[in-house]
């Protein structure tokens, strides 16, 4: 199977501050994301993984380097082009409460995502689609449509965010710690929903996480970041069973598993 590159990241660097306060958050990072692929970017706090995600979402300009979507450089996207990009690339974040405007109902949040569309569907069509995507995430339109975010639990809010993703049908979803605020027994249903995006829409997904176990569970490939640099990338199995870079080796050693002794 010949895989097509969806997003091409080359020599990405991001610097915050200047002179004495200069911090290089991301250093010369390059990687590709193929169509219909799930990858994880794994790193500890301060490794630059979220900064990388924000640049991929076109929410932050790189200091150097380029990002191309299907061969087109995104740095000069304005107006309509930028909207088109967000139609193709969408994000979902750790704290689903922070992603909501607290004065908007669920219905309004979902309605607003149609603003990314070139052709506006009719009111009936919008209604029908919203009902359908809420059904995908196991929520009932009548129960949640008129609710405000503070009336929902964390898991419910995250599912609304996923419903929004199903509405937009992006080619690439960037999920930044999407389950780290969710209880373990609810996590599986959120993960299942996210992974179904690949089956249903043939999308690609990038998980940004510090949780190596989660990364291994969901991904085809894993990228390891440390101090702003990409230190290793490879298939999930290779990274976990045969890590090469000293940092990756240490990281894997430091994560407790169930069946191996944790060298304390």
């Amino acid at each position, binding site marked *: 199977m010949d895989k097509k590159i969806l997003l091409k990241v080359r020599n990405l660097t991001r610097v915050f501050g200047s002179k004495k306060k200069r911090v290089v958050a991301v250093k010369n990072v390059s990687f590709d994301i193929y169509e219909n692929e799930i990858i994880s970017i794994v790193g500890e706090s301060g490794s630059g993984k979220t900064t990388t995600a924000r640049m991929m979402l076109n929410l932050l300009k790189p200091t150097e380097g380029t990002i191309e979507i299907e061969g087109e450089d995104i740095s000069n996207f304005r107006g309509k082009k930028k909207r088109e990009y967000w139609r193709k690339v969408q994000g979902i974040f750790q704290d689903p409460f922070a992603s909501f405007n607290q004065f908007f109902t669920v219905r309004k949040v979902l309605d607003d995502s149609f603003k990314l569309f070139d052709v506006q569907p009719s009111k009936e069509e919008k209604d029908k689609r919203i009902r359908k995507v809420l059904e995908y995430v196991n929520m009932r339109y009548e129960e949640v449509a008129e609710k405000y975010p503070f009336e929902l639990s964390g898991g419910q809010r995250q599912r609304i965010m996923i419903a929004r993703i199903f509405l937009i049908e992006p080619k690439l979803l960037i999920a930044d710690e999407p389950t780290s605020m969710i209880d373990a027994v609810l996590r599986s249903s959120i993960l299942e929903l996210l992974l179904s995006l690949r089956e249903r829409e043939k999308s690609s997904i990038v998980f940004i996480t510090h949780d190596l176990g989660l990364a291994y569970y969901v991904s085809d490939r894993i990228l390891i970041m440390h101090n702003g640099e990409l230190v290793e990338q490879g298939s999930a199995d290779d990274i976990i069973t045969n890590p090469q870079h000293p940092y990756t080796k240490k990281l894997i050693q430091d994560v*407790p598993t169930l069946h191996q002794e944790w060298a304390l």
Partner: protein
Amino acid sequence: MSGKKLLEVKDLYTYYQTRLGEKIKAVNGVSFELKEGEILGIAGESGCGKSTLGISISGLFPPPLKYGKGSVKLGDVELTNINHSKLRKEILGKKISFIPQSAMNALNPTLKVKRFIVDLVKEHEPNLSEDEIIKRAAERFESLSLPKRVLDAYALELSGGMKQRTIVVISTMMNPEVVIADEPTSALDVSSQKIVIKLIRQLFEEKIIKSVIFITHDLPILRHIATKIAVMYAGEFVEVGTMEQVIFDPVHPYSNALMNSIIVPEKGIKGKKLPSIPGAPPDPRLEIQGCRFADRCPLADDECRKAPIEMREAKGRLVRCIKV
């Protein structure tokens, strides 16, 4: 290994009193014993009452937390009705050390680390001079292979992992019998988590502390530090057994789902079907007739909803379920 009984909690009930006059029941009839040499892990998800249990055991009932009924006995001393100044002078920090969640962010930024230690030790041993206390602290730091310079640092100069280790050392200065640690590793990177766990293990092996209650939602960590594990759901213990029993062979349907949802980077995890439990835990304001997990349980029937479910023995451990 069966050491001396240090702590006994019997049928403990505590709740939060709201201004609207409602009672939020947080701990509902918890009983257990803690012996010398034991590290008891208390596992559960957000809102199950595990942190409230930790505070309640320490005997402090900061409002709006209120004592309902039951007892907490440290040796012969009953902690639920003890005079607060006596509790602070003779028990807390000396016999029981309670390390609340994110204690490491509560260190006063204008004081050096050694100040906290002097304050603590002076409270319990007023005759010791400051120099002596600092000398003792330096020895303690050295024996645990932590740098002595930390004593002269301000909290904000320390990394997260170092801050948490400092908290652990400060709170064990008086060699307490029981250490209650609430999520001591949760805000840390994996490498720092490991270092903190190592330190707790070391304190334990060097007999500086005699027992630990380790409250966390992180099951893989309990796998490597706990000797016993109690799984908590909606204010109750639903399963209490040895680490091996609870992690590798859970019996209660809830602990079973919890253990099955563990994802760690090891072979066999990829492609594993994760359990998914519908619904949410019950409203803590409500009085519940039967099993608190019944509405989400695959095994539940009418029998489960009739009367309160008692702990009973099954497969060598305690379980609160009539279906297994």
